[in-house]
């Protein structure tokens, strides 16, 4: 009877049975020619969605048909885009092809925008590529901005006041603004209240732009307006670097919540009525689950994020729709990061393969690592391991696991760049 002990089953399935498991080369998609057992449509080919698509094909040995719908022709990485802003990296190195997902993994990659999903009939509708029926839907569309959180951040203002928080044309445009900034000018970065994509990202950005100023425009300033009470990630490490290296450049103001902006005079106003004027404004509005997630009906936490069953990552609002990445209402201490979205993608793929195999999906472990560059060479990290808690029904950080760097180091700077190269390949290769 030991065979049916739930713990024993968990080990056999989610975690164990490795001795019996022979390595399967990624290219050996055994089901070639066979009728697929079902079709999964994935919306969004970022760190979450593309990973889910690849691992669905890998773990099902090609038995599950996967359609991956993405509006961009190419993958553009948000991680490392701060290095582009600082002039430490070429933008082209952050852009990657979906070719291997098509050719190597047999995924149908569709370049189109999803206009609607009929969750009753299980059909995804797109603007220019027709409709796709699904047995399971994986939703990984990221976030959208709530521009209404800042008065005056209208379409006209958005032409000159950038967020550059989704890598792409805005990354290049902000880089241009920084290049055009005369020495002695002020760059203003405003951070919204958490949760938002990439918790350490703004502090990395401030550090890297300060590093650029230090070398090329030493009289320029970085003014950080943070709606949060304090630096919300790697606080001591960032503060220590700023104190040692950027004391004359970075000014940090916590509890400074931007509620209005005037693009013409480049002025922002806080909740308390304080005003700040800068030469380059880089304003991040509040964030929420992408609009398509709202339309599909999975956004059920504070009208902002999507709640899921943490074993399958299936929406608690709409059956057969799995949600991952930034769109999620995150588990405690689980950041909205590309690394985490990749781990969500694997958890979803595992759950769906188990469901299609007629087995009961088991909770899996997830881990996070966020590296941040602090100048052209050195970096710091934060990491954590998350294990599903059967009573609380949510992944929690394993006690004693995780932590941060001792100090910024060149060695971790090298690992940061290796991390990017490797995860891009894990997601797309």
């Amino acid at each position, binding site marked *: 009877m030991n065979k049916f002990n739930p713990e024993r089953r968990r080990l056999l399935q989610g*975690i*164990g*049975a490795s001795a*019996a498991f022979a390595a399967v080369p990624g290219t050996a998609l055994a089901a070639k020619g066979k009728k697929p057992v079902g079709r999964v449509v994935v919306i969004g080919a970022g760190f979450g969605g593309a990973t889910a698509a690849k691992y669905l094909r890998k773990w099902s040995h090609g038995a599950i048909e996967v359609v991956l719908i993405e509006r961009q022709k190419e993958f553009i990485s948000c991680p490392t885009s701060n290095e582009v802003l600082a002039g430490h990296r070429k933008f082209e190195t952050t852009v990657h092809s979906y070719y291997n997902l098509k050719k190597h993994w047999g995924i149908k990659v569709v370049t189109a925008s999803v206009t609607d999903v009929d969750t009753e009939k299980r059909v995804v509708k797109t603007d220019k590529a027709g409709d796709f029926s699904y047995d399971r839907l994986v939703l990984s569309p990221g976030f959208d901005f709530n521009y209404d959180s800042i008065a005056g951040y209208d379409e006209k203002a958005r032409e000159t006041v950038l967020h550059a928080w989704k890598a792409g044309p805005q990354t290049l445009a902000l880089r241009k603004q920084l290049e055009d900034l005369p020495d002695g000018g002020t760059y203003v970065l405003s951070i919204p209240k958490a949760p938002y994509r990439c918790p350490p990202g703004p502090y990395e950005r401030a550090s890297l732009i300060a590093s650029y100023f230090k070398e090329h425009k030493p009289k320029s300033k970085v003014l950080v307006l943070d709606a949060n009470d304090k630096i919300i990630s790697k606080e001591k490490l960032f503060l220590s670097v700023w104190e040692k290296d950027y004391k004359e450049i970075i000014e940090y103001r916590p509890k400074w919540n931007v509620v209005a902006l005037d693009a013409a005079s480049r002025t922002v106003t806080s909740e308390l009525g304080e005003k700040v004027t800068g030469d380059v404004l880089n304003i991040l509005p509040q964030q929420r689950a992408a609009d398509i997630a709202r339309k599909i009906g999975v956004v059920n936490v504070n009208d902002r994020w999507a709640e899921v069953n943490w074993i399958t990552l299936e929406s608690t609002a709409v059956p057969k729709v799995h949600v991952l990445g930034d769109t999620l209402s995150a588990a405690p201490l689980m950041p909205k990061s590309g690394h985490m979205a990749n781990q969500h993608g694997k958890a979803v793929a595992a759950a769906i393969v188990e469901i*299609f195999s007629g087995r009961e999906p088991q909770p899996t*472990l997830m881990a996070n690592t966020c590296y941040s560059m602090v100048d052209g060479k050195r970096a710091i990290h934060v990491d954590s391991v998350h294990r599903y808690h059967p009573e609380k029904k949510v992944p929690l950080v394993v006690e*004693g696991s995780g*932590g941060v760097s001792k100090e910024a180091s060149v060695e971790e700077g090298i690992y940061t760049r290796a991390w990017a190269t490797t995860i891009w390949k894990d997601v797309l290769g």
Partner: protein
Amino acid sequence: MKIRTIPLTLALLASSAGLAQASGLPQTPPPYFAANCANCHGTDGKSTAAIPGIAGKDKDWLEEVLKAYKQGTRPATIMHQLAKGYTDEEIAILADYFSRQK
């Protein structure tokens, strides 16, 4: 309750074996959590970047090193923190899995 769940489980297991066999789906699931390592060490542990690949390494060595990271006796920038998230049994499974990747 318990008596009733057993036949259900049996039925599920029986049908799943049939399903997987007919479809080409693997009959035995891999240790999915081993893919946690892929973000930094490459898919199936294969990488040539500065963060070393771990595919095809000696099983005993992998297990020993991961346990040393976990106990804090082997210096690291990050692995001493991540290894603490896994049980010894899971570490043995990881070592076994990556040692088999060629």
